[in-house]
C-alpha cells in the first residue's frame, strides 16, 4: 500500500488557463484531494452594461480565444430572444455551419495537440514530429481546414465579424461554399486516418468509471450544437428537458473555498458537459458516419468514463464534417440570398445557449427601450465541469492509492483526467518571451 503521496501540480500544462492539482496522502489516508482554480474573475457581464445591442456579441466574443464563435452565437441568440428578432432559415444554417467549424477546430486541437501526447508518452507535440511525423502533419492539415472554414463563414475564425444580430453582415458566395464542400470531401481520408490513430491509441485510455449527470442541448431533429432545449441524462438513463430561459434552475452556480470559479450542480452533486455529455444525451441524432466512428472506437451511450471525452470529440469531428456537408448542400440548393438584418420587435430580457467545444454555454441579457444593455450573465462550460472533476478526483485517488500507484503515476492520471475535460479556465496571455542569440 502506498503510504505517502504529495502531489502539487501548479499551473497544469496543456490546458487553457491556470488550474492546480493538490493531493496529500499520509499513511494511506487521503488528507487533501483538490482541483483548484485560482484564476481571477474577469467581469465581462459588467463590461456589457450600457452598451448597445449591436456591440454586445463583439465584446463577449472576447471572453475566449477558442470558443469565440460560440460566445458570439450564444450572445446573439440571447440578444435576439430579448429583442424578439427572428432570424431566417439561411442565417440559421450558416450559423450551424460556423458552429461546426469551431467545434471541429477545437477538437482537432485538443485531440492531436493536447491529449495525444499523453497517449503517446510524449511531453508535447514537438517530439512527435520525429516519431509520428505524418500524424502531426495531418493534425496541421485539419487545423488549417478548420481555420479556413471558420474564416469563410465568420469573417475570421477567432472573434468572428460577420455574424450580427438579425443575420449576417457578409455572406459567402455559392462558389466559395462549393469550394469548402470540395475541401471537406478531400479531408475525408484524413478523418479516416484520425479514426485509425485513435482506435490504435484507445487501449491506452485509462479505465475509470464514475456515473454522473450529463447536461447538453438536445433536439429531436438534430445533434443540437446550435439550438435546442437543455437536457439532462442521469446514470439510470432518465432524461429531462428544460427551456433555455430557465437555465439557472439547471446550473445552480455556487461558491466553494478551493476555487475562484463558481461550481454548479443539478440533480446530483455535480454534472458534466462537453462532447461526452452531448454524445450521452444525443447519440440518436449523430450523423450515420459519426455513429460508425463511435462503433469503431467502442464508444456507446451512456459512457461514464470521463477520459473518453477525448474519444467523443473524435466522433464529433466526424459528425461536424459530414453534417457540415449536409448544410452546404442545403444552402446551395436554396441559393444564397442577400437578406436584410431582422429588426427588433421588443426590448426586454432573454437567454440563449449553444454547444461550444467544451459544453453548453449560456448567455442572458436585459435591454432598455433604446436597446442599451442593462445587465448580463454568462455561464461557461468549464465552470460547469469543475465540480465534476473534483468528484472524479475523490473517486479516482483512493482507487489509485489502493492499486499502490506511485506519485508520478497518480500525478499523470490526474493530469490526464483534467485534460480529458479540455478545460478552458481562462484566456491566458500570449506574449513572446525571447532571448536574442544573434
Amino acid at each position, binding site marked *: 500500500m502506498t503510504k505517502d503521496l504529495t502531489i502539487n501540480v501548479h499551473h497544469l500544462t496543456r490546458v*487553457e488557463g491556470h488550474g492546480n492539482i493538490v493531493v496529500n496522502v499520509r499513511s494511506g489516508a487521503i488528507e487533501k484531494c483538490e482541483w483548484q482554480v485560482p484564476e481571477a474573475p474577469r467581469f465581462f457581464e459588467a463590461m456589457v452594461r450600457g452598451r448597445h445591442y449591436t456591440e454586445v456579441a463583439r465584446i463577449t466574443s472576447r471572453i475566449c480565444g477558442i470558443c469565440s464563435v460560440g460566445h458570439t452565437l450564444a450572445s446573439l441568440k440571447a440578444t435576439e430572444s430579448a429583442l424578439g428578432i427572428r432570424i431566417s432559415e439561411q442565417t440559421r444554417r450558416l450559423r450551424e455551419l460556423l458552429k461546426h467549424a469551431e467545434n471541429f477546430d477545437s477538437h482537432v486541437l485538443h485531440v492531436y495537440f493536447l491529449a495525444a501526447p499523453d497517449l503517446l508518452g510524449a511531453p508535447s507535440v514537438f517530439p512527435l514530429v520525429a516519431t509520428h511525423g505524418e500524424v502531426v502533419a495531418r493534425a496541421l492539415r485539419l487545423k*488549417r481546414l478548420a481555420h479556413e472554414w471558420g474564416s469563410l463563414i465568420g469573417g475570421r475564425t*477567432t472573434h468572428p465579424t460577420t455574424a450580427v444580430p438579425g443575420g449576417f453582415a457578409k455572406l459567402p458566395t455559392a462558389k466559395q461554399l462549393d469550394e469548402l464542400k470540395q475541401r471537406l470531401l478531400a479531408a475525408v481520408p484524413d478523418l479516416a486516418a484520425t479514426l485509425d490513430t485513435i482506435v490504435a491509441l484507445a487501449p491506452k485510455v485509462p479505465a475509470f468509471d464514475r456515473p454522473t449527470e450529463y447536461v447538453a442541448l438536445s433536439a429531436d431533429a438534430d445533434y443540437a450544437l446550435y439550438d435546442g432545449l437543455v437536457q439532462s441524462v442521469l446514470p439510470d438513463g432518465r432524461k429531462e428537458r428544460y427551456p433555455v430561459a430557465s437555465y439557472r434552475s439547471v446550473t445552480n452556480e455556487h461558491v466553494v473555498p478551493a476555487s475562484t470559479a463558481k461550481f454548479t450542480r443539478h440533480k446530483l452533486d455535480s454534472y458534466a458537459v462537453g462532447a461526452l455529455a452531448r454524445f450521452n444525451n444525443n447519440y440518436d441524432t449523430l450523423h450515420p458516419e459519426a455513429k460508425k466512428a463511435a462503433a469503431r472506437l467502442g464508444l456507446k451511450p451512456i459512457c461514464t468514463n470521463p477520459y473518453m471525452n477525448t474519444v467523443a470529440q473524435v466522433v464529433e469531428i466526424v459528425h461536424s464534417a459530414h453534417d457540415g456537408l449536409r448544410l452546404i448542400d442545403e444552402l446551395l440548393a436554396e441559393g444564397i440570398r442577400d437578406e436584410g438584418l431582422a429588426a427588433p420587435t421588443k426590448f426586454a430580457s432573454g437567454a440563449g445557449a449553444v454547444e461550444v467545444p467544451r459544453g453548453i454555454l449560456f448567455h442572458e441579457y436585459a435591454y432598455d427601450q433604446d436597446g442599451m444593455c442593462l445587465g448580463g450573465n454568462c455561464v461557461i462550460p468549464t465552470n460547469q465541469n469543475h465540480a465534476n472533476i473534483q468528484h472524479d478526483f475523490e473517486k479516482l485517488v483512493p482507487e489509485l492509492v489502493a492499486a499502490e500507484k506511485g506519485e508520478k503515476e497518480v500525478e499523470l492520471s490526474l493530469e490526464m483526467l483534467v485534460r480529458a475535460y479540455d478545460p478552458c479556465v481562462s484566456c491566458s496571455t500570449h506574449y*513572446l518571451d*525571447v532571448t536574442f*542569440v544573434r
Partner: protein
Amino acid sequence: MRYLVGFGNYTACDDSVGLRIVEYIAEHGLEQGFRALDLSTNSLNLVSYLRPDTEAILIVDSARMGMAPGEVRFFTPEQVESRKAPERLSTHEGDVLKVLELARELGYPMPPIVFMGIEPERVTSEIGLSKALVERLPAYAAAAIARLRDL
C-alpha cells in the same frame, strides 16, 4: 500576398498591442497592398498563410525582450530563442516561434518572416493598452507597414 499578422489576448492589456495595430490599420483604411489579420491567441492558424504564394509575413506581437516599455525591435525567428516551455503549447498559450519551428520541420513553405516585438509595460487582465504604448499606436502602425513593404 503580404500579411501583417497580429497576435495577442485582447483582454490582457499590452498583450493585445498586435491586435490593436491591426484594428488601427483597418479603422484608418491603411490596408493597401497587404492583408492585416487578427489571429488573436491562435498561433497555430498561422500555418494557413505559409503558402507558396505568400510573399512576406510581418508578425506584430508584444515581446518580453528586456527593453523599456513601448520600445520596438524587429527580428527574424532565427535571431531569438523562446524562453517558453514547449509543453505549454496550447491555443491560449501559443508560442508562434514554436509553431514556425513545427511548420518548418514539416516542410511548409517559409516566406520571409519578421517579428515586430513591442515591449509591454504590463500584461494584466485589462481592456486597453498602457499609456506607454497607446500613445505610440500610430507610429507602430506606420513602422509595421513600412517594414512589411520592405520585406
